[in-house]
């Protein structure tokens, strides 16, 4: 049995909530205003949001009906291990974005690449060192060249 109707149900619900937020708060507040001969500044974004809302509501309802007919529950407790496995790469990259904000990327790059290799199970030191060093050296060379020609 596939998990698609449940995925569709929750994604539809999430997208519908986003569309409602867009229509009731974000577009009216931040969508811009002013006199226009043609279309109002908010018009196209509003049409897009209505399109999203309509499609996501239909998707949610159809998926809910499919789940009900199959006798499956709408809620399924996610496996925490699986969730963690999906989430850690995002946290890893976010952590390095914070570091890049404070230190030059050429300093941070070996840690970013080497750390990820170690986390993914690479234990051969020469592979870790070479994989971390070659792209970093490439970036260093490119940055030096761009500075020399006055681009950055």
């Amino acid at each position: 049995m596939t998990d698609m109707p449940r995925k569709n149900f929750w994604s539809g619900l999430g997208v519908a909530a986003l569309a409602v937020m867009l229509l009731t708060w974000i577009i009216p507040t931040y969508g811009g205003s002013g006199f226009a001969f043609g279309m109002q500044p908010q018009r196209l974004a509003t049409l897009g949001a209505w399109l999203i809302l309509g499609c996501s509501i239909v998707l949610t309802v159809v998926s809910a009906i499919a789940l009900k007919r199959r006798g499956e529950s709408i809620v399924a407790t996610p496996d925490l291990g699986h969730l963690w496995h999906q989430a850690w790469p995002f946290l890893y990259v976010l952590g390095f974005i914070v570091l890049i904000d404070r230190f030059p990327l050429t300093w941070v790059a070996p840690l970013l690449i080497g750390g990820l290799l170690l986390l993914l199970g690479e234990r051969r030191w020469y592979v870790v060192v070479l994989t971390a060093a070659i792209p970093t050296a490439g970036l260093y060379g490119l940055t030096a060249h761009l500075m020399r020609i006055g681009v950055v």
Partner: protein
Amino acid sequence: MIGFDAILNSFAAALHYESIAIILGGVLLGYIVGVIPGLNRAVAIAIAIPLTFYMSAYAAIAFLIGLSKGTAAGSAVSAILLNTPGEPSSAATCLDGYPMASSGKPRKALKVGLLASVIGDLLATLLLIAVAIPFASVALKFGPYELAAILIFALVFIAGMAGGSFLKGLAAGGMGVILGTVGLDPETGAMRLTFGFAELMEGVPILPLVIGTLALAEMFVQLDEYRRNKDASVIKLGKNADDDLSYQEFKGTLPTIFKSTGVGAFVGALPGLGPSVGAFMAYGLAKRSAKDPDSFGKGNPNGIAAAEASDNAVIPASYIPLFGLGIPGSVSAALLVGAFMIHGIQVGPLMLRDHPEMLFTLFSGMIVASLLMLAVGWYGLRIFARVTSVPPHIVISVVIFLCLAGIQVQGYGTFGLVTVFVFAIFGYFLKKFDYSFVTFLVAFIVTPMLEMNLRQSVILSGGEFSILLERPIALAFVVFTVLMVLHLGWTSYRRWMQARHKAKQV
């Protein structure tokens, strides 16, 4: 209109050694990327766009087109030797490529794939040149009504044809439209959805958007899949004389290559269908029309030829709506539009009027790229066979670094890094929940053009819809759009009813 001398000059420019070197670089890089499983064309183009910032417009686009073509041909190598397609569109190549390679004929399988790729690509490029120019000449006569109607039709068509659910496709298109309106309103100068960030005044920057949604999100998906599929065995190339492709064997695949190129070119010219559909359609056709259909799936060279010729024919053909009408029909075409935008060129029929030399030089460059593909693939066979052994964890780590470096080198700073991260989450969501990425990206790219044409139409017509009756082409596209929505809605409903019926029987 451009003269014959100018066309000759365009060819001469494409054959200049600098131009050849740039295209060769693109094809070579594309080939390597295509060979590595998990790295696809879109990821390669997204990462390569920052490299092209400091090139001339022609060099940048020629490099990216070479890259795009190289990935399509290179992806067959991993499909044949590893049974893992470098691109989803090479999945059909696995069906006969891997069994043929397993039976001790890996070189033969690779050469059939390469020759089919090159012929398919070259013929589709010639078709593009023949069709796009008359197409663009007609499109230049269109006004805002026609263009707005065609763009809306194209978006609905792509949402319906890009695979998966039509509803999710339309919703993804809506997201693209909203993001496409971010920035200063061209008529009133009002700031739209910028939230006070000056960086958003010219719209959402395209580079962080494509790197985040395509490359970084793809790496997060790859990381998720990495733990499930760590081990794969590669077939090594031997020196067996039986493993060489003879002229007779190649000749036997030619009818299949020509038919499959036709299928690929047709599929490519329709926005949204993509190379996977083309490859499987051509494979199915080759199997049905074969005298020995049972041999398909067991190492029939015609199976490889069909899949590869069609897969490679889709790419140039997908540029027909791009150069003819300004509508990107695929992710790689949409990325090319982004690259054109970065270099200040509006791609589409206006190119024929404003930059005809560049258009013809690009077309010439495409033919050069097809020929270079043959040379690179033929002489680099053994090297590329070795590249398939690069472990995925090395690829993922380096690509994540390249994503962040690409943003940093372009000077987007912290804002760019945060934007790329936000779009990576967004892209991951699109991929995991199967929302059509191509519809999202195409909608994002064409929204400024759509808005401008809609706005002009509203001003010119004074809000009167009856004006459409005087514009038959625009009216026809409005009718096509309505029919398309009804047809896709009806098809989805029937599919849903069939699934319900099946579930009841079980």
